[in-house]
């Protein structure tokens, strides 16, 4: 055998292999000769004629009827011209044959050995497989969307009825009309979590006999049981009166399994006190069943591709079983609702994907990241090194926050800022029980959120106690507002030049029947966090008006200044309330001053400006409190309708002997005067301080040197003495 024939045989063998491969892949392969003209390398007899037409012996052109492929060639030509490596993919398209049959294709453009190549692949199998998966996924998506929408609509109606109908019987009647028609379970509970109304569907959902026909189990008892087991944080939901959405898995004996989607909403009165709870229960077993056929969809979040809550649970359980220490981090995105509402869900989704990617980039391969709720992620950190592993874990958590804080580029805005709050627990130090770990992580996150967000909190027993205390304090405060357990004291403010009392600052004290007198520092921050500051602020304002009225009757017409918290500044109803109340008590606006803290200016300047201008229009005056502690610049002050600056007590303490404080205070006074603002010094306790301030041309002073905050009687005594 000659060498020559050997080579030819080998070549032929190679070609044969090539063709066998193309056949197996179900590909037609073309090599581009010139624009729109190809050399046929391999064809599939059964379908190539749909795509290509023979033009001469071995030249072919693309069938013009194949619009999609013709369009793709525009991109392919550009791709070949750039002589790039890689493959350009057309994506799937479908051709319909004259007999109605459908063929599914994908085209690939690449360059092989310098030659532009076009591959057309019949993707029948992949297509069918992907279609099954996507079909299930999309049906789920739409079912969820529809369910949520029905629940939202119904809830809006029920919420309206409960909030507006003062007549209980009428209210129940209206609601029962609504819920009887519903296609899902609805329950209305009173604030003690006892059902007062539910539709019969609830009993059918749990295969229970209708009420009154015996049996100790009720729908609500089953739901609470399931929540206790599957969502250890459930207690906190009720204690802190927050909305909740989740899925429950119900195993009814012996082989019967149901998936329920449960939404829980608190209904609150104007004081924010929960009067009712409404539960919505949807049977989503069919959807779940659909998903369970598909491992990936059942265990991974479709948006971020991260393990979902179900998988997260089994990972936590497994890790607990292995007995190796780990940290569990809960990462909760702050104010995510705001983003969804203001920029749209598409943008919200996009953000979540970016956040997931950033977390993945930051953490090690062996660390597990899960998406366990709409805007909640969980991280399981193993092998945290160092002899102080808490410290290392803290450093990691800090890096997570930093990473999340990097501005986001999204469609509408190229600088979207996001913060997150993180709660951390340790296995086995904090607990060796998966349920408790998750519950504690939730609790720690909740606390991180409370302290102004963008914070990290490690779980501890004190934290748990503090949370419990906080919740009971919050309830007590709500009661206190309801029963008006507050007293408003007045602290005189003296004009330095004349030595006369020119006005008074109103200061609130809580006179609790159980705990005695409680100072503002112990409840104002809580009131601020919970929003109770709004009703409390209004209550205090009414007290002040009453005081002024009484003083007027005694012939005194002093101005009283009232503290305004940041939340009140953002409350649209506040300014109308003020002027309504002033009219009601017949108090002239000139007798009212509002004190805003410097730090509340820092946030949304335009909003603050707007509120203050509105208030000022009616005739009240405004002062800036705690001046010097924040970052407000002169530029700010110039634009605000402010009349007084109050220099914070921290500068006054050292004014008689600290050169630094002296310099600051004197500079602030000069600056204020140049802006035509008067200056009040707070916390003046001795004559040395007063002397300094007098020399610096300070206008007025307030502090223990003259008087503590006193009740109205004592204050009138003061006025009497002072006017002698």
């Amino acid at each position, binding site marked *: 055998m000659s060498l020559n024939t050997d080579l030819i045989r080998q070549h032929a063998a190679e070609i044969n292999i090539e063709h066998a491969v193309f056949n197996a892949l179900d590909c037609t392969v073309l090599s581009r000769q010139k624009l729109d003209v190809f050399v046929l390398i391999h064809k599939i007899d059964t379908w190539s004629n749909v795509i290509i037409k023979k033009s001469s012996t071995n030249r072919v052109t693309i069938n013009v009827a194949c*619009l*999609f492929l013709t*369009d793709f060639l*525009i*991109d392919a030509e550009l791709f070949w011209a750039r002589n790039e490596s890689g493959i350009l993919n057309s*994506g*799937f*398209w*479908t051709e*319909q044959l004259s007999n109605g049959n459908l063929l*599914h294709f*994908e085209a690939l453009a690449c360059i092989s050995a310098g030659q532009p190549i076009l591959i057309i692949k019949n993707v029948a199998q992949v*297509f069918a497989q*992907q*279609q099954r998966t*996507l*079909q299930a*996924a*999309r*049906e789920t*998506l*739409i079912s969820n*969307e*529809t369910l949520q*929408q029905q629940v939202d*609509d119904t809830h809006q109606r029920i919420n309206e009825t409960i909030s507006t109908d003062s007549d209980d019987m009428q209210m129940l009647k209206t609601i029962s009309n609504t819920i009887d028609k519903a296609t899902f379970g609805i329950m209305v509970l009173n604030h003690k979590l006892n059902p007062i109304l539910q539709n019969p569907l609830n009993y059918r959902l749990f295969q229970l006999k209708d009420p009154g026909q015996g049996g100790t189990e009720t729908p609500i008892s089953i739901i609470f049981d399931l929540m206790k087991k599957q969502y250890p944080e459930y207690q906190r939901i009720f204690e802190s009166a927050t909305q909740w959405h989740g899925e429950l898995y119900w195993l009814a004996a012996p082989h019967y399994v149901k998936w329920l989607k449960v939404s829980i909403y608190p209904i609150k009165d104007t004081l924010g006190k929960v009067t009712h709870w409404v539960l919505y229960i949807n049977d989503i077993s069919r959807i779940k069943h659909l998903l369970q056929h598909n491992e990936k969809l059942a265990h991974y979040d*479709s*948006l971020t591709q991260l393990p979902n809550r179900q998988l997260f649970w089994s990972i936590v359980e497994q890790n607990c079983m292995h007995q190796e220490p780990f940290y569990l981090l809960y990462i909760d995105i702050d104010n995510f609702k705001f983003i969804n509402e203001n920029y*749209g*869900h*598409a943008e919200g*989704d996009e953000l979540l994907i970016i956040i997931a990617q950033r977390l993945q980039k930051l953490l090690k391969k062996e660390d597990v990241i899960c998406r366990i709720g709409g805007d909640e992620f969980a991280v399981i950190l193993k092998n945290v090194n160092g002899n102080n592993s808490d410290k290392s874990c803290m450093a990691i958590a800090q890096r997570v926050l930093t990473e999340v804080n990097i501005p986001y580029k999204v*469609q509408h805005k190229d600088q979207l800022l996001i913060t997150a709050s993180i709660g951390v627990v340790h296995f086995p130090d904090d607990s060796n029980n998966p349920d408790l770990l998750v519950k504690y992580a939730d609790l720690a996150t909740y606390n991180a959120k409370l302290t102004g967000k963008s914070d990290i909190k490690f779980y501890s027993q004190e934290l748990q106690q503090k949370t419990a205390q906080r919740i009971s304090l919050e309830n007590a405060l709500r009661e206190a507002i309801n029963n008006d357990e507050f007293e408003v004291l007045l602290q005189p403010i003296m004009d330095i030049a004349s030595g006369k009392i020119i006005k008074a600052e109103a200061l609130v004290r809580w006179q609790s029947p159980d705990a005695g007198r409680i100072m503002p520092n112990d409840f104002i921050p809580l009131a601020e966090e919970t929003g109770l500051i709004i009703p409390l602020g209004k209550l205090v304002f009414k007290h002040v008006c009453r005081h002024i009225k009484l003083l007027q009757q005694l012939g005194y017409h002093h101005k009283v200044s009232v503290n305004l918290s940041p939340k009140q500044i953002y409350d649209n109803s506040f300014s109308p309330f003020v002027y309504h109340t002033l009219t009601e008590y017949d108090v002239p606006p000139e007798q009212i001053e509002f004190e805003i803290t410097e730090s509340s200016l820092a946030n949304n300047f335009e909003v603050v400006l707007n509120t203050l201008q509105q208030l000022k229009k009616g005739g009240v005056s405004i002062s800036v409190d705690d001046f010097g502690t924040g970052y407000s610049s002169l530029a700010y002050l110039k634009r605000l309708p402010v009349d007084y600056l109050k220099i914070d007590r921290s500068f006054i303490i050292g004014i008689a002997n600290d050169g630094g404080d002296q310099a600051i205070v004197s500079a602030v006074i000069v600056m204020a005067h140049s802006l035509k603002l008067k200056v009040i010094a707070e916390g003046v306790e001795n004559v040395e301080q007063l002397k300094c301030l007098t020399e610096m041309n300070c206008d007025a002073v307030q502090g223990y040197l003259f008087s503590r905050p006193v009740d109205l009687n004592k204050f009138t005594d003061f006025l009497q003495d002072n006017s002698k």
Partner: protein
Amino acid sequence: MIQKKICMLGSSAVGKTSLVRHYVDGIFSEKYLTTLGVKIDKKNITIEDQAFQFMLWDIEGTDQYSGFQPRYMRGAAVLILVTDCTRPQSYLDSLDILRQARKETDAPAILVINKSDLKAEWKLEHQQLFDIEKEFIGTIYTSAKTGESVETLFELIGDYFVTQY
């Protein structure tokens, strides 16, 4: 004969495929079969003696499983944004999709509110609807099931093309 490319856009299961099927083949199926990628159908139509060939690009719905494909917008003469009158979210999605399409093409867009045979239990605020509608050259309620206004939709588009000549 003038060829015109028309893109069917919108979130999944709003009825893009069904509208095309009804228009081209006069059939409707209750069963939902999700579209993958693209399928192009052709339909000839004559309006005021002008013959057109519509090339109807039925494009996979845009949702979290499948992103918007700018490439498919090339050469589009009209965009049909399909929404489902029973799903408020589909309106918002359509705006989002239109915004992305606008980066690629200035082709006029028509808002189709499909499934008009079903009762919508909700409605958009006037302002909201106004904001949406001002993005479109027209709004039309259709049903791929009963066929309501399906022909009309494409005739409107034909009319629009005729006025262009």
